[in-house]
Structure formats: structure tokens, C-alpha cells
């Protein structure tokens, strides 16, 4: 069977034009997807490290059990904890996120997403300045200037440039790449940089000063700058501002190179101001390059459910938000968390070593279709269907545009949403010890 217009569940591009071919064996082709997307879509069967049965750790070994046993064990762990952490969420659908918030309310947990280790600083920047954004179709149809800052879509978001940005075509951009100026600012010459019209290399950790200098030039105050700013000649920066101002529609995309270099959210804060100020001259927008396909979705769900997009502490019954205090890494680094539920993420691979060690010291519940390094330190392992391949539901693209993920094949395992609901119901049946 062939299914058209399937939405890819790999990265924040959410390409929705994938042609998926299935037979009795499962998915055999994913036409139109990039290599990253097709490995995700095709990687559903056994032999791709799928977990087949729920497991519980007994005497150091993971032992297979029935689902209900795993649910009850998970519920007891969470209910007994004084500071449980519910972490992950980037690779599942919003219906599961809503259940996650309900579970956090039920057990008084801190709920946080993988944004905390990717675009969390971007969110804090937005709290300072707001974000001048647009849907990707605006870029496709209008942008004649594209600036990639600290990101490398050619490798991390392979179809971004073709579908939405530098190489796309649209109503006012019929020439595609030819009609556009593409600029890359980064600390190293990436593949994206090699595809650009202009590459500006900056020293690591100097993004803030460089953006500040651009803002000063834009405001007509170039004269107060010295001949160089952090190793870049003033002339080069003046030229750059000139190019930005002359654009009819400029789009700035930024990645972890900006959010996780020295300065963190201040870099974003300053870039957001630059974008706002450019709008006094021409049209400009700015967008974070979100990684996992629905990391934007968990932010949206948490915002309407509890008022804040990440790092929310429900321990006192009311949402409390303060990254730096209530983010997953904060809790683990300070050894505050005394239990964790990890869903749709693999912190054992992505967190710094000391934080993984903290995770290893506490009871961990893992909900995931696949075995991964987090499985090695989990005490309860609950296999789930793959959201976006075996389960339908909502996901939000990097620009905030929501799409409905399709169910392409029938799942064997329950969905994340069903699992979370069962754990919550089991937790509700347990007596309150406080």
C-alpha cells in the first residue's frame, strides 16, 4: 500500500510530503524523505532495537513482565518520590504531552523537555524580548536574504534549505537560490557555510559582542566602534549591515552554536533585538532551528496547560517556572530528583556525564520504542508504539505550525498516551502518604 503526504517524524522540519510504501512486512520505502528521516520512518521493525516487552529490574537484571505490573511499579516509584522528574517529550505527539502534564499534576513532579539542552536558552531570550517570527512558507515565498547563525541545516536539517529556505521557490522568489543572498556566521566552516554566498567566521564565545556591534551600526553609531570587533574588521560588519538593510525580506535562522555558546540566552536576547530593530528598515524574522520533530509541541502544550513552555515544577500543586532552578539538568546536577520518568528522549546519551551519574543513582522509568543507553540505567522499561509512525497525533513544526502525524502501520505496543494514562490511574489508586 502507498500512503501519500505522510509527515516525517525526525526533525523540526516536519516535512509532510513523504510517500510511504508498506507491505505485510511493514514499511519498505519512504520516498522523499532525507536520509535521517527515512532511517527514522523505516526503522520501525524488530531488529532496529525495538523493545518487545515491558521489563522491571530485579537483582540488577531487567526481567520481562506484563504491562500492568510495569504500570503499577512506575506509579509506586513516582508516588513515593518527593521530587520526581518527568523528562523528554521531544519525539512524541501532543496528545501524550497533555497526559504528561496531568501525570505531573497527579504526582507533584517537575516536567521538562529536551529543550532544556537545546533551545531552552532561546525561550528565555524570548521572555526578555519576544520573537519576530513567521511560518516557513513566508521565507519560501518572500525571503531574498537568509542568515544562518550557529546552525548547519545542510547536515542537521537536510531538507530545510530546499523546502523552506535558501533553495526554495515561491511567489516572490521565483529564482530560488539564484535570487537569494545566503550568509553563514559560525565558528567553523560548516557544509552550510560552504554553500553560502558569504561566510563570516567568528571566535567562539563572541556572538554577543558581534551582534551588539551590528545593532550599533544599524543605529548609525558605527563611529564608536574600533577598527575591529572580536577579530572581525569593522568594514566587514558595516558591509553586512548594509546587506541586511537592503534585503526585501530577511530571515535569520539560529542553532545551538548561538544558544549554547558563551552568553547563552543573552546571545538570543541580543539577536531578537537586532531582528526587531531591522524591522524599522525592512522586513526581518528570526527562528530557532528546532531539533527533534515535536520539541516545539511540548512547549506549546505546556504553555496552554500550565502557562509556561518548559521546566515546570508542580511539586506544590501550582505550576512554578524558573529554569536554572527547575530544569531537568538543574535538578539532576544538584541531586534533587529522587525518581525520573524518561519518555521519548535518551538523556544517557545527551546529558553531561555527571548528570547521567545522578540519573543512575535514582529509580528511572523509561518509556520508549527503542533500547538505548538510558535503558541501561532504567528500573522500569515500558515499550511503546512509535508516535508519528504507528500512532497519529499532533506535532508542531519549528515555526509553530501544527500538523497531524499519520499512523502508517498498526502498532503492536500501546501508545505513549495510553501508557501515561495507565500510570496516572495506577498512581491515583495509591494512597497519599502526604
Amino acid at each position, binding site marked *: 500500500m502507498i500512503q501519500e503526504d505522510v509527515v516525517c517524524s525526525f526533525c523540526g522540519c516536519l516535512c509532510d510530503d513523504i510517500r510511504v510504501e508498506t507491505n505485510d512486512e511493514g514499511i519498505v520505502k519512504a520516498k522523499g524523505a532525507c536520509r535521517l528521516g527515512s532511517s527514522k520512518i523505516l526503522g520501525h521493525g524488530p531488529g532496529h532495537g525495538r523493545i518487545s516487552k515491558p521489563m522491571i529490574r530485579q537483582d540488577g537484571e531487567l526481567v520481562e513482565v506484563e504491562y500492568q505490573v510495569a504500570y503499577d511499579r512506575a506509579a509506586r516509584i513516582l508516588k513515593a518520590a518527593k521530587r520526581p522528574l518527568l523528562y523528554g517529550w521531544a519525539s512524541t505527539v501532543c496528545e501524550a504531552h497533555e497526559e504528561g502534564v496531568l501525570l505531573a499534576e497527579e504526582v507533584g513532579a517537575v516536567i521538562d523537555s529536551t529543550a532544556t539542552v537545546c533551545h531552552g536558552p532561546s525561550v528565555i531570550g524570548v*521572555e526578555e524580548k519576544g520573537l519576530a517570527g513567521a*511560518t516557513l512558507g513566508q521565507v519560501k515565498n518572500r525571503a531574498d536574504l537568509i542568515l544562518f547563525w550557529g546552525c548547519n541545516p545542510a547536515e542537521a536539517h537536510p531538507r530545510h534549505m530546499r523546502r523552506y529556505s535558501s533553495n526554495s521557490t515561491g511567489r516572490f522568489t521565483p529564482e530560488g537560490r539564484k535570487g537569494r543572498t545566503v550568509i553563514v556566521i559560525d565558528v567553523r566552516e560548516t557544509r552550510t557555510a560552504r554553500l553560502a554566498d558569504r561566510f563570516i567566521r567568528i571566535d567562539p564565545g563572541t556572538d554577543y559582542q558581534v551582534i551588539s556591534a551590528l545593532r550599533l551600526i544599524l543605529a548609525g553609531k558605527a563611529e564608536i566602534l574600533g577598527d575591529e570587533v572580536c577579530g572581525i574588521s569593522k568594514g566587514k560588519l558595516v558591509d553586512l549591515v548594509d546587506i541586511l538593510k537592503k534585503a526585501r525580506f530577511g530571515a535569520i535562522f539560529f542553532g545551538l552554536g548561538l544558544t549554547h555558546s558563551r552568553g547563552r540566552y543573552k546571545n538570543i536576547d541580543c539577536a531578537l533585538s537586532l531582528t526587531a530593530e531591522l524591522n524599522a528598515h525592512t*522586513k526581518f524574522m528570526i527562528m530557532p532551528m528546532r531539533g527533534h520533530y515535536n520539541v516545539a509541541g511540548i512547549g506549546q502544550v505546556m*504553555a496552554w496547560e500550565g502557562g509556561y513552555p518548559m521546566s515546570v515544577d508542580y511539586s506544590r500543586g501550582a505550576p512554578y517556572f524558573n529554569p536554572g532552578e527547575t530544569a531537568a539538568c538543574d535538578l539532576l546536577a544538584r541531586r534533587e530528583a529522587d525518581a525520573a520518568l524518561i519518555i521519548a528522549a535518551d538523556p544517557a546519551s545527551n546529558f553531561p556525564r555527571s548528570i547521567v551519574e545522578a540519573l543512575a543513582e535514582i529509580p528511572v522509568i523509561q518509556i520508549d520504542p527503542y533500547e538505548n543507553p538510558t535503558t541501561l540505567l532504567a528500573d522500569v522499561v515500558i515499550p511503546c508504539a512509535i508516535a508519528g509512525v504507528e500512532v497519529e497525533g499532533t506535532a508542531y513544526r519549528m515555526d509553530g505550525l*501544527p500538523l497531524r502525524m499519520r499512523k502508517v502501520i498498526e502498532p503492536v505496543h500501546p501508545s505513549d498516551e495510553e501508557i501515561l494514562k495507565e500510570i496516572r490511574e495506577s498512581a491515583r489508586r495509591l494512597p497519599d502518604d502526604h
Partner: protein
Amino acid sequence: MIIKGGVVYDPANGVLGEEMDICIDAGAVAEAAGGPTIDARGMLVLPGGVDAHSHIAGPKLNAGRIMRPDDGRIGTEPRRGLCRPCTGYTVPNSSAIGYRYARMGYTTVFEAATPIIESRHTHEELEAIPILDKGALTLFGSNWTVMECVGEKDLPKLSAYVAWGLRASRGYGVKIVNPGGGEAWGFGSNVKGLHDPVPEFNVTPAEIIHELARANERLCLPHSIHLHFNNLGKPGNYSTAIETLDLLKDIVPSRDRQAVHVTHMQFSAYGGTGWRDFESKAPEIADYYNKNDHATMDMGQIIFGSATTMTADGPLEYANARLLHQKWSNHDIELEESSGVVPLVYIRGSPVNAVQWAIGLELALLTEDPWKVLLTTDNPNGGPFVKYPEVIALLMSHKRREEEMAKLPELLSKRSVIGSIERELGWGEIAVMTRAAPAHVLGLKEKGHLGVGADGDVSIYEIDPREVDPGSDPALVERAFTQAKYTIKAGEVVSRDGEIAGIPQGRTFWTDANVPEEDMARLMASLKEKFEKYYSIQMSNYMVQEAYLSRPVAVRAGVEVAQ
């Protein structure tokens, strides 16, 4: 359920302060009913409140929440009883929106603006709002297909697109915001007036408005076009308001209602040439409404204190952000719209804010017929909806207004006429502005009244209108309206003395309009091309799927209904 012995105001049925029983059976008002009895003796009984224009769900709300954790922490309430935790004041979380409206006696609220392509998000948030019945108005004013149909003077095709767009967004009615301006803002400019052509499209805002109004009536939609004027928020814009209203005099409504609803009129009743000589032109607008019957409006009253402005009027928000040196979020939407979000504070000491405050009240007090003026704050643009009781007190009490004016700059008396208005609205008029009129303006036949067959939505307030003189005791009025004694939704008590007592899942109204097949076929050809060339998603992934509306109510409309 029987609500016994209350003092009932049901202006749609000519009931003004009669002591009578209201029976609710199977969720609707009935001749007789069994079940529990509520003793409402000595209390004011009204139909459940209806808000026809409020920003309660969708991308703009979340943008506001995300950029304003400072607002989030203000309204924090822990999980308690049936209630999930709440946060926020001007941008509350979805749970808080439902509980707080219900506590005030409101049971139906319409989201004022949803872009078609992001309506899935709007519906996800609407579904997350407990208790209330709701609907969403769909944005059409800067839409490429709309502008092309207008340019081609192809009314049948435009009507087909409106019908299709309502279905795609599961929207209820046609919202038009700064028509053409959203497209111009796509390249950073704006349209300057009604007859300024939209760049690249060669149609004018006047043509967009007029043709959408014709399409609206051709489709016999339950609601009229719902219009946010061009030049909104700018000194001197009252002339644009009157010019636009004149433009719509020839529109013949297809149903028993207005031809146009003008939203948050306060922001469009400005005189002066700039902020220095800024003044109220509410008397001119009210005078126009007193002489003409084709339009309704809502107030868009401002409330002193914190607000979060959010609108599809992108260029307006950029101007606000620059003027006030505030945080600025913007979100332009391919082929369809622009939008922006800016937090701000209305300050008593500011002459401009004081005049804005006066204008909203003047509109309501100088327009003779309360059926033409709905009570809103354009939540949360003028201030949060939880302040409606304050607006009611101001409208019902000259004394309350004088107390407020004493705190405002003296200049106010030169720039507005608020001080000279002695009119005090009565209970019946407030019932019209908060119940009967919004339901009628929206075309919701089962809302806003208590006749047999109406939805069993009732609010009961602990105040006896026969005993209390609102003019001299505005504080009692404000207190009573802040917390209903009972709020009843479809025959179920959902709030009692401020405690949430029931959390039913509300319904979502949308309009299902039929058009002739040949019109739809022509439309499809041009839409297909747009998806192939311009949209960043596939047509098959565009429409809001049924899964997003757990309790949909499809209101039938369409060309056949009209004929």
C-alpha cells in the same frame, strides 16, 4: 432543574425584572422540569453570559504566555477540588480561562481570530478550556485567495473559498483584520486607508471588506462579517471607521441581524492628528450608530493596569512595541495573515490612556440602543476579561465614573465628553450587552435568552435588583458580577459561590456552508496550484481533522440556505 423565584432579566423575551421560575430539562430551558431546585429568591437571574469577542485560544495566546512568565505567576492557583492548577492574569492557562469565565456567570465565549493554517492549534487550546461553549472566527482579510477572487470580481468563487476556509479551520464566522495590511506587512509595510491598494494584489481594503460581506450574505452565515478596521489604534482613525461603515450600507443581511459587526470600536474612535492632540471621537461614532442600523460594535474597553495586546494587525503591534519600548512578538502566516503580541500597561496618569478609557464608556453610553454595543475589553488587549464586572459598574453608575475620573489627568475633560454623560445603564441593558446582544450578533439562537428551547445556561447573582440602586452602590454590583452565586451550564451547576462544581466539556460551534459544486471545482483548481507552488504544507494535511473537535456543533449555512 428548577430555579425558583429569582428576579429574571431576559430581554430577548421581553422579561425585565419579573419574579419567575426557570425550568431546565435535558440541558435546555423547558416549560416544566423535575430534579433539583435552586432557591433564587431575592437574586438576579440572567441567561448565561456570552462573549462574542475574546482571545482565548491559539498561537497568539501561547505566544503571549511564553513571552510573559511575569504574567503567568500573577494568577497562580494550585490544584484544588475539581480544579486543575491555574496561572496568569492577562494570559491565563486554558483551565483558568474556563474557570474564571464560569465563576463570573459566562458560559459561551468566542475566540476572535484564528488563521486557517494554524487552526489545529486553536482547537487544541479550545478543547483544553473547561466548561465553556466556544467557537472561533476565521481570518480572511489578507488572504491571497480572497484577494485574488476579489480582484477577479468572482463572488461565487470567493463564497466557495469562505465556505472551504470555514470548514478547513472549523471556524464559525468571517473575521477581517486590517484588510490587506497583513499581506503588506509580509514585506514590512501597511495599507494606509480604505482605498490604498494592497501591494502586488491590486485590490483595496474597501473591495476586500465589501466583497467578503457580500460573500458572507451569499452564504447566509449565522454571523455577519466581524471587522477590525484599517488604521486601528491611530489618532484620527474615526474617519476611517465612518467611511468603512458607509461602504457597507448596501449590504443586505441574509439573516435577521446586522450587516457588519465592528469589533473593539474603542480603538477606532480616535480623533486628533497625533498623540499630543489625541481626543475622543466616540460621540461621532455613537451618533452614526444612532442614525444607522446596519452595524453593531463591541466596546473594547480598556482597564487600567496590565494588558497583553494580541492581534492579527501585525504592523500595529510593531508600532506599539516601538512606541512603548516593549517586548515584541510577531508571527506572519504564509498566504494568509500577520499577527503580533505586545505586553503593555494602561496608566491612569497617561492622558492617552485616560482618553482611551473614556472612549469605550462613551461608546456604550452615547449609543442609545444597547443591542448595538457589546460589552468587551477585547480580552486581553484592553485588559483581562475578569474585569468585566468593573466595566458593568462603570456603566451603571455615574458616581463610580466620577470617582475614577478624579484619579485621571484633568486634560481628559477637554479631550472627551465622559464627564458630562449622566446616563446610567439599567439591569436590562446590561443583560442585553452581555447576553442577548452578543448571542444575537453571533446568530446563536439558543444562547443569550431563557425562552423555552434555549440552552440551559443560567447565571444567578446574589443581588436583588429591586433593592439595590447600582448608581449609588456600584461596589455591590461589581462584587455580585465578579462571582456568580450559581453558574448553570446546560442544566448543570458548574460554579457556586466561586467554587467550580462541575467541569463538563463544552461544545464547539462551526459553520458548515454549502456552495454549488461548480464554484467549488473552480476554487479547487486555483487552490491546488497554491499548495503546489506556495504553501509549505500539502493540501491533504491542511484541514483541521475531526479528531480536534470532541463536541462539534455544525451550524448549517450556504448558498442553498440563502435561496
